[in-house]
């Protein structure tokens, strides 16, 4: 039983390291928020394996829901006013009513 627990810890640690690397190296904040949510899940798994369900619970709620949501909302706000964005496809349009790319698709 002890051996299996050790392997689980190693697998969870590798998962966390991989998703943290992916999240830190992502260029686009929208991609990054998705990867941060995956990091949150990986961390929750690791914390559960390390016998810390309390921390896993708050990490699951915060890391996979609140932080990525706030990042997506900020990206939407920042890109909405400009008409250009990091994706740069809409050129120099300064019309504030340009339908912006939307994290939540149906809002506009």
């Amino acid at each position, binding site marked *: 039983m*002890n051996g299996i627990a*050790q392997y689980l*810890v*190693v697998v969870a*640690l*590798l998962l*966390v*390291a991989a998703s*943290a*690397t992916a*999240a*830190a*190296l*992502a*260029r*686009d*904040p929208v991609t*990054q*928020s998705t990867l*941060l949510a995956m*990091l949150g899940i990986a*961390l929750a798994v*690791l*914390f559960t394996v*390390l*016998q*810390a*369900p*309390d*921390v896993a619970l*708050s*990490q699951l709620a*915060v*890391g996979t829901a*609140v*932080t990525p949501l*706030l*990042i997506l909302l*900020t*990206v939407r*706000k*920042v890109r909405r*006013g400009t008409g250009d964005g*990091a994706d740069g496809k809409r050129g120099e349009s300064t019309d504030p009513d340009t339908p912006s790319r939307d994290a939540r698709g149906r809002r506009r």
Partner: protein
Amino acid sequence: MSVFPYLVAGWILLIGLYGMVRSRDAIHTIGCLAVAQSSTYVLLLAVGYRRGGTSPYFSDTPKSTTVVDPVVQALALTDVVVGATVTALLLALAIQLRKRHGTIDPDSLTGLKG
């Protein structure tokens, strides 16, 4: 195995810092900060793990059960939630930055304005 979890925590911190240094976007910087921050949780919980220990709740287990260290878990727990609100504060600053300076690229903020 005896130091591997600590090294993973160190790696997460360094890769998060690297992302912040390379960042061209304040929102991206804040995301990398969240990554770097998660290294502290990994380190804390790794230090507190005890072989064969269960989680520190005694509702339905006898009081003699071996448990992992609850002190570090308590530290990590509050920090997860508080860290999220601090991230929100930083994101609010990024929105203000966009409103006042028209950019969120840290390299474009060359001088003081206003």
